[in-house]
């Protein structure tokens, strides 16, 4: 499978969009990782033909004929969308998410729906009604989550691009564990119309890609305001992909790269080694390393599991067996219909988070938990503001370990939550972040490094990421 950039160039030059799309559909059907839960055969072929007609008519399409896999929490008109939950059994989306519609307008072709942790709640893709996803580098290991299917699909070469959603690391952590690029844009950069909501003050759609330039191309097509989503920012988006041409390393000269020394504590040694290698390589390329501190970052997981679950308990109240999805048999009363439909339809982790969210919002506990979490969230935002007054980007690990084995953390929810230690604060502060593959451990499992920038700092973030990506290729 070629890059999105090269597929689009070929299709714009006259190659039929069917070539790449048919290859992606064949790969999606041959998937052995359980990354793909739905192949969009007929729809994709019709879309490929429509792209060919548009190119023939003289249009230049930035994503002409590029196959894209879509996480199962995004709506595509006429296609099932289930969040990999039993409670959305039988739901067919009656409209298309703005992010997907904009990719299609740019010539991209949706080829498959991808597996995920149920309602995007998980870090291992083991919480899916469709069963777990396997890591393409070692099928006994997890791909990360919650966008595990999207990351595995890109890493396995099924599609050059996939869409994910990131509430606390759900794009970046699986990207790191599968060895691809994962980008969480600034909160509000991409419209969430048609994304089934989890934590509305945190959720953001973004690409999983083979390289930084493809991710930028995908974001360029999706970014911008939307009448259907009042939280989507209306500011003008300056295309990022055209800024990534030429020698990527040149952008590192004079770049101020922050790092938190405490981040190496508890890291798997191979991850720490690669992080140190990145720092040395960045220095050699002319960047300046700036030690910074994030005094409240260690509270991020506690804050997150109050705010995200509180928001989720509210967002998921719409799944009640009335308007869509699963309904319990022979309900006696309306209350019985709600309570049994929900108990039967939601999986264990989703119920756990709804319960926690309901608890922290309940009368008598709100001030102690929810309000306190919102106060500490502000302190985390202040930490970021102080950091980005001193540096252009912040470098660190994406995940404390490489891919762990299936079943290793499922018995202990809190241990699973702690695997998101480096990605969660990003969402709390609404800043953009990207995970870049940077070598492997001794078993050949991918290691990802994370770069973060200030809100709307995507231009410097992606230039730095492209530079780091170039350094990864040379050692």
């Amino acid at each position, binding site marked *: 499978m070629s890059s999105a950039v090269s597929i689009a160039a070929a299709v714009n030059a006259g190659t039929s969009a069917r070539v790449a799309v048919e290859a992606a559909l064949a790969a999606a059907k041959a998937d052995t990782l359980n990354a793909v839960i739905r192949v969009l055969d007929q729809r994709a072929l019709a879309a490929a033909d429509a792209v060919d007609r548009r190119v023939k008519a003289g249009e230049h399409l930035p994503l002409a004929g590029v196959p894209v896999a879509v996480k199962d929490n995004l709506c595509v008109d006429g296609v099932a969308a289930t969040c990999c939950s039993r409670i959305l059994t039988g739901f067919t989306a*009656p*409209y298309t998410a703005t992010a997907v519609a904009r990719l299609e307008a740019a010539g991209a072709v949706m080829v498959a729906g991808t597996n995920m942790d149920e309602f995007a709640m998980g870090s291992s893709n083991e919480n899916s009604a469709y069963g777990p996803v396997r890591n393409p580098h070692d099928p006994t290991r997890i791909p990360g989550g919650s966008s595990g299917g999207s990351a595995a699909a890109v890493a396995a070469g099924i599609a050059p691009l996939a869409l994910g959603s990131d509430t606390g690391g759900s794009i970046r952590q699986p990207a790191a564990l599968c060895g691809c690029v994962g980008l969480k844009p600034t909160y509000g950069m991409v419209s969430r119309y048609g994304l089934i909501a989890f934590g509305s003050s945190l959720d953001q759609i973004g690409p999983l890609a083979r390289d930084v330039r493809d991710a930028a191309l995908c974001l360029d097509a999706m970014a911008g305001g939307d009448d259907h989503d009042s939280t989507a920012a209306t500011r003008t988006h300056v295309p990022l992909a055209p800024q990534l041409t030429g020698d990527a390393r040149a952008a590192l000269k004079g770049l101020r790269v922050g790092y938190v020394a405490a981040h190496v504590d508890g890291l798997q040694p191979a991850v720490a080694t690669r992080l140190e290698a990145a720092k040395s390589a960045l220095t050699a390329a002319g960047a300046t390393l700036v030690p910074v501190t994030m005094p409240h970052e260690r509270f991020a997981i506690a804050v997150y599991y109050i705010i995200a679950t509180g928001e989720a308990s509210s967002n998921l109240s719409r799944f009640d067996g009335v308007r*869509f999805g699963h309904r319990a048999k022979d309900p006696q009363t309306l209350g019985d219909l709600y309570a049994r439909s929900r108990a039967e339809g939601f999986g264990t982790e989703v119920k*756990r988070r709804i319960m926690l969210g309901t608890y922290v919002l309940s009368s008598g506990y709100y001030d102690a938990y929810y309000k306190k979490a919102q106060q500490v969230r502000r302190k985390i935002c202040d930490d970021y503001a102080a950091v980005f007054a001193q540096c252009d980007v912040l470098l660190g690990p994406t995940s404390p370990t490489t891919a762990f084995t299936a079943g290793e953390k499922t018995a202990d929810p809190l241990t699973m939550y702690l695997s998101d230690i480096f990605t969660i604060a990003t969402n709390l502060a609404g800043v953009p972040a990207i995970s870049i593959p940077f070598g492997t451990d001794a078993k050949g499992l991918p290691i990802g490094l994370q770069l973060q920038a200030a*809100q709307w700092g995507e231009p410097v973030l992606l230039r730095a990421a492209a530079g780091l990506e170039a350094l990864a290729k040379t050692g």
Partner: protein
Amino acid sequence: MAITEANVRHIAKLANLALADAEVTRMTGELGVIVGYIEQLQAVDTAGVEPIAQVTGLVNVVRADVPRDMLPRGRVLGNAPKADEVAFLVPKAVDRS
């Protein structure tokens, strides 16, 4: 704050979740551990700190109150477990007999 089975049953009622007894027992232990973990926030000094709910500085976003882009009724009702031509159908909510 220790979580009891009575707490869990009360929360499950608020959350509209019909939990089995075994789930209540398991959830009591699991939520207890998680709540124990989030208690660490009590150690952070937040005196005078304004809570934050929206991080990019958005304030109320308004638009003209005009109808647009309505979904066809049939497509919406088509997703319902039980519906007729015009409405979602549920068990009787108020019994006047």
